[in-house]
C-alpha cells in the first residue's frame, strides 16, 4: 500500500509545485517586478567600531554618561525609556546622590493617584522609579528606546547611521550613481516626513535630532561633534537594551575555560577507556 500510494502522493506534490513554478516563471518573464526604491536606495548601517564590540568588548562608562546626556537633552523630549529605572544609572558610574538628583530633576514627573480623594497628580521621580512616560503631541508614535538597539538589525551601528544619515533628497544618488528622484519621481518624501537612506522605507517622521556640533555640552572635555554625539547615544542605547552585557561576557570566559578543561579531560578519559578496543 505504502509503495503504491507513496509515489502517487510524491508525484502529486511535485506536479503541483511544477504548476506553481511554471506560473511564477511565466509571470516573472512576462511582467518582471521592477526593483523598488527601497531595494535600490536603502543603505546598510555604516561600519563603525564600538568599545563593546567582540567577545572582549566592554562598555566605556564615560561614553555611556555622555550618551545619557544626549538622551536626556535631545531624545527624551519625544522618546520614553520605560524598561530602565533611575537606579540602574549607577551602572554608568554615577553615585547614589547623583542618581537621586537625576531622578528628582527629571523633566517628566512620576504620576500619582490618591485612592482616598481620587486626585491625580505628580511627584518628583525616585531612584526606584522607571523613566516616566513621554506624551508626544506631534505626528507619529516615537518608539520607546529601551530596546531599540536589540530590535533593529545592526544595533548600535544602525542607530549611529540613522542619526548621522539624514541627507537632502534632491539630487541624492546611491553608490551606483543612480539618482533617486530621476528614477523614482513618486518616491519624493511627503511633507512631514524626512528622507534618510538608512531607514527601512527611506522616509521617517523624526527630523534629524542631532543637527549642530556642540548641541549637547559635554562635561568631560570631549568635543561634541554630531558624529560623536551619535556614537555616544548609540552606546548608551546599547546599554539600555543589554545592561548585563559586561557581566555576560565576564561570566562567559571562566565558563568556557572550565568547559574547555573539562572537555580535554573527558577526551583523555575516553581515550583511556577505549585504549584496548581499537
Amino acid at each position, binding site marked *: 500500500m505504502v509503495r503504491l500510494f*507513496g*509515489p502517487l502522493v510524491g*508525484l502529486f*506534490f511535485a506536479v503541483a509545485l511544477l504548476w506553481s*513554478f511554471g506560473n511564477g516563471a511565466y509571470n516573472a518573464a512576462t511582467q518582471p517586478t521592477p526593483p523598488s526604491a527601497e531595494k535600490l536606495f536603502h543603505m546598510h548601517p555604516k561600519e563603525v567600531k564600538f568599545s563593546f564590540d567582540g567577545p572582549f568588548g566592554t562598555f566605556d562608562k564615560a561614553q555611556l554618561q555622555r550618551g545619557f546626556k544626549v538622551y536626556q537633552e535631545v531624545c527624551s523630549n519625544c522618546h520614553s525609556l520605560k*524598561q530602565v529605572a533611575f537606579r540602574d544609572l549607577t551602572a554608568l558610574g554615577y553615585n547614589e546622590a547623583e542618581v537621586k538628583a537625576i531622578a528628582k530633576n527629571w523633566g517628566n514627573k512620576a504620576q500619582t493617584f490618591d485612592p482616598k480623594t481620587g486626585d491625580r497628580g505628580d511627584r518628583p521621580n525616585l531612584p526606584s522609579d522607571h523613566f516616566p512616560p513621554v506624551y508626544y503631541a506631534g505626528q507619529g508614535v516615537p518608539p520607546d528606546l529601551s530596546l531599540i538597539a536589540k530590535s533593529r538589525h545592526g544595533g548600535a551601528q544602525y542607530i549611529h547611521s540613522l542619526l548621522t544619515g539624514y541627507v537632502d533628497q534632491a539630487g541624492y544618488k546611491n553608490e551606483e550613481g543612480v539618482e533617486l528622484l530621476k528614477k523614482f519621481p513618486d518616491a519624493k518624501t511627503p511633507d512631514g516626513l524626512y528622507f534618510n537612506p538608512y531607514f527601512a522605507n527611506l522616509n521617517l517622521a523624526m527630523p534629524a535630532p542631532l543637527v549642530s556640533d556642540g548641541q549637547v555640552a559635554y562635561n568631560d572635555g570631549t568635543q561634541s561633534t554630531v558624529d560623536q554625539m551619535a556614537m555616544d547615544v548609540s552606546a548608551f542605547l546599547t546599554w539600555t537594551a543589554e545592561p*548585563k552585557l559586561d557581566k555576560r561576557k565576564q561570566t562567559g570566559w571562566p565558563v568556557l575555560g572550565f568547559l574547555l578543561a573539562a572537555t580535554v579531560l573527558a577526551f583523555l*578519559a575516553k581515550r583511556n577507556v577505549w585504549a584496548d*578496543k581499537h
Partner: protein
Amino acid sequence: MSFPWANEYKPTNPLMQWVDERLPLPRFVYNAVGAGYPVPRNLNYMWNFGVLAGFALVLQIVTGVVLAMHYAANDKVAFDSVEHIMRDVNWGWMLRYAHANGASMFFIVVYTHIFRGFFYSSYKAPREMIWLLGVVIFLLMMATAFMGYVLPWGQMSFWGAKVITGLFSAIPLVGTPLQEWLLGGFAPDNAALNRFFSLHFLLPFVILGVIILHVWALHIPGSSNPTGVEVKQESDTVPFHPYYTAKDGFGLGIFLLVYCALVFFAPNLLGHPDNYIPANPLSTPAHIVPEWYFWPFYAILRAFTSDFLFIPAKLMGVLAMFSAILVWFFLPWLDTSPVRSGHYRPLFRKFFYLLVVDVLVLGYCGGAPAEEPYVMISQIASMYYFLHFLVILPVVSSIETPAPLPFSITEAVLGKDEHATLAPATPAVA
C-alpha cells in the same frame, strides 16, 4: 531484552542491595544506561546525539521551570515581565538566553540525530517503533517550540501565532471555526497567550514520556551501528558504561562549549530583532519569519503559489508542510533495501547528500523574504524533497547493487573475525 552476555547487576554495597531487593530501580538504570547494556563497539560520533538531545530537553525543563517562576502569561505584562527577567531577576538574563539558545541547540542535535537515522537507515526493521516514536517526539518539539516563541509577546510572537494558527483556516468548512477555537478568539490575544503558556509547560513532560518509550523500544533490539550489520557475538559489543558514558562525556563537553559560546557571546544571533518590539496587532512586520529551525518547512509552505486542481494554494501549502514531516512515518516501508548503512549503498548515498543540500537550501529560502528568486528555488527544492522520500527512495532500493557487507562488527573494527572462517576453504575477507 538484552544479549545473553550482558553483565548482570550485582550490588556490593549493602544499601544498594537493600534498595534493589525492594525496588529494582538501580538494576533498571544499570541495564538501561550502565554496564548491563551491551552496545555495538563501532559507534561513531553520530551516535552521541541521542544523549545530547536528552540532555538538551533536561536543560530546557530546568531553565524553563525557573523562568516560569518569574514570567507572567498575560498580554498586558508578558513582554515587560520578560524584560524584568532580563534586568532585575538575579541571573535572569542568563536563564533566558540559556532557554532561548537551548531551544536552538535542541533542534541542532535533533536534526543531526534524524539525519543520522536517514543515512544509516536506523528506521528499518526491527527498529521501526523507535523511529515512529522519534517522529512523534519531533512533532511535539515543534509544537512546544512554536508556543514557547509566542510567550515573550513580541512582534514575531504575535504574528507568528497569527500565521501558524491561520494555517488551520485553510481547511475547508471547519477551518475558520477551528482556528477561532484554537486561539480562543478571532486573533491572538490573552486567551491564546495563556493557553500557549499552559501547553508550553505541559508538552515537555509529554516529550519526556515519549522519550522513555523511545529508549524502551531502543533496548528491545539494541542500538544500530555504522555498518548496519546486526550484533552477532560478544566481541561485537562493549558495555555502555564505561565505554559510551566516556564517549558521551566528551561529546557533551563539545556541545556545552558551543552552547555556552552562544549564550554568553552571541545570545541574539539566532533570534529575530523584531521580537524585541512589543506585540502590536495594528502593525504587521515587513517579513514574518519563524525561528530558524522551522525555515525548511516554512519554505515548503510558501512554495505553493498557485491553486492546483480546485485546491487553493494555501491549502496545498499546508498539506505539503504537514506531509513533509508525516512522510517520515512511512520511511521504514518506502525504503525496502535490505542493507541499512549508507556506507554500503553507493547510489542511495548520493541522493542522501543531495537531500542534505536540499534541506539546507530550503532552510535558506524559508528565512529569506517571499520574493524571487527564493520562491522559485524553494519550489524546485520542495519538489526534490517529496520526490526523494516518495519516489527516489523506493526506486533506488530496488535497482541498487549494494557493496559487500563485513561479516560482523568485529571484522569491521579489527579487520578480521575468526568466527567468519567457517570452513578452511572459505576466504576470511568478504
